[in-house]
């Protein structure tokens, strides 16, 4: 039993030390702004198309599903509000996070893993560059910064997709749709949804960086790091979502 548990505790302890190193580097060392801007571009701009397509598809699907359900109760007029509330509070953040986790966590895991096994990380250290501060910190911070922005973008696209979904069933002007969609939306709907994505961004950056930076075992290890990063990040996002929903219900 102990033999089975010990690798988990070793991993957990190692991840905790990685978190400590991240916090120490973030608050005590010079921040690498250029690397941060580069990573923001990779994570943020690079995910726009994927997040956009996902948001659009989700908006259309939600609209069609809700429309059928609401029609049974003669409550079709509530459809725009239902779409916007579901998208802003839950669907937008979680879809954005899972899509970005699939693309970015694996990408970070593979890139840093490849740098580790080809000794590029050692080369940075030997060149008197703090590899952790140079590679890891900007990626995690860029994840934290990019996710809220991507989520807002996803929300807009999904709500737009909802309009397309309605148009398939009936005629409504865009102005009518938007005014109905925002009728019941308040700050307590927007802020919890957007703020929790900073946690998702942290999870994506942290898990991707941890798996990549700690890669061992050559090219096989790089593949494992990329796979583990996306699996673990997706899992943690779903678990965090449950906890954050509970917290947001308490506070908002």
């Amino acid at each position: 039993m102990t033999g089975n548990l010990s690798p988990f505790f070793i991993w957990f302890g190692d991840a905790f030390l990685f978190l400590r190193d991240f916090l120490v580097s973030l608050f005590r060392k010079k921040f690498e702004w250029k690397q941060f801007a580069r990573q923001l571009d990779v994570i943020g701009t690079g995910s726009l198309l994927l997040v956009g397509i996902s948001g659009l598809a989700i908006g259309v699907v939600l609209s069609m599903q809700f429309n059928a359900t609401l029609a049974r109760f003669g409550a079709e007029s509530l459809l725009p509000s239902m779409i916007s509330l579901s998208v802003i509070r839950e669907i937008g953040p979680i879809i954005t996070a899972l899509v970005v986790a699939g693309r970015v966590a694996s990408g970070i895991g593979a890139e840093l893993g490849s740098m580790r096994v080809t000794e590029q990380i050692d080369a940075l250290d030997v060149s008197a560059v703090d590899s952790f501060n140079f590679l890891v910190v900007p990626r995690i911070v860029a994840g934290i910064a990019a996710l809220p922005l991507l989520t807002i973008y996803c929300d807009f696209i999904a709500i737009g997709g909802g309009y397309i979904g309605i148009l398939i069933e009936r005629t409504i002007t865009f102005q009518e749709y938007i005014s109905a969609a925002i009728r019941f939306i308040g700050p307590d709907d927007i802020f919890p949804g957007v703020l929790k994505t900073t946690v998702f961004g942290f999870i994506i950056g942290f898990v991707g960086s941890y798996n990549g930076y700690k890669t061992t075992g050559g090219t096989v290890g790089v593949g494992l790091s990329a796979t583990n990063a996306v699996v673990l990040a997706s899992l943690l996002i779903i678990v965090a979502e449950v906890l954050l929903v509970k917290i947001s219900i308490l506070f908002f």
Partner: protein
Amino acid sequence: MIELIRVFKRFGSLQVLNGVSLTFRKGENTVILGKSGTGKSVLLKHVVRILEPDSGTVLADGRDISQFSDSELMEYRKTLGFLFQGAALYDSLSVFENVAFPLRRHLKLTETQITDRVTEALSWVSLPDAGSKMPSELSGGMRKRVGLARSLILNPAVMLYDEPTTGLDPITSNEISDLILKLQKQFGTTGLIVTHDMPCAFKVADRAVLLSEGNLLYDGEITGLEKSVDPLVHHFYQTSVAKRPEQLS
């Protein structure tokens, strides 16, 4: 001067360094020989503190490097150059940017000065026109030479070479060996050279050490390997040199 005092290092069940004590003197080229897996590269990585010993001490000019603060470690590393076995070029940067990287990080130079320094370093390794290429476009030998240009761009006091000529053709190997000698003669650079390439070793070495299963078997002039009465040293010399005498001419 760099000293290793009774350095032990174990990876899992494998004892890689078994109480190695060694001194690398200033301005001297020391060749580190031994079979694969005897801890030669691990030894080099202890000198730059990429790895830390399980027990034992590494001293740089009399100071224990494990006691260095972050900033002291960075200053120490600025005095070192490390040529990695696979060159370890940064994939996302061009050859020019690879070589310029240490300059941009550590010195406040104008773009013209950086260009001049990089061009000079690339000329040293006979690749004056390779600046615009990406690492993926280079052959193994070219990668190694770019790695060498990058590691010597800050004029390090100590150069660590991890198999500098492995995988290279004899002509390029000879050029790299000449370059190691040139650095020593022109700048007084201390050289720690891990190699299996005996012609290179004979050319550049002021001194040779032989590691076997984490132990120091021999420490002395490279020509002394042949005369050693230790059967393991003798066997190593016979298998690595005596069977290929034509390469030494």
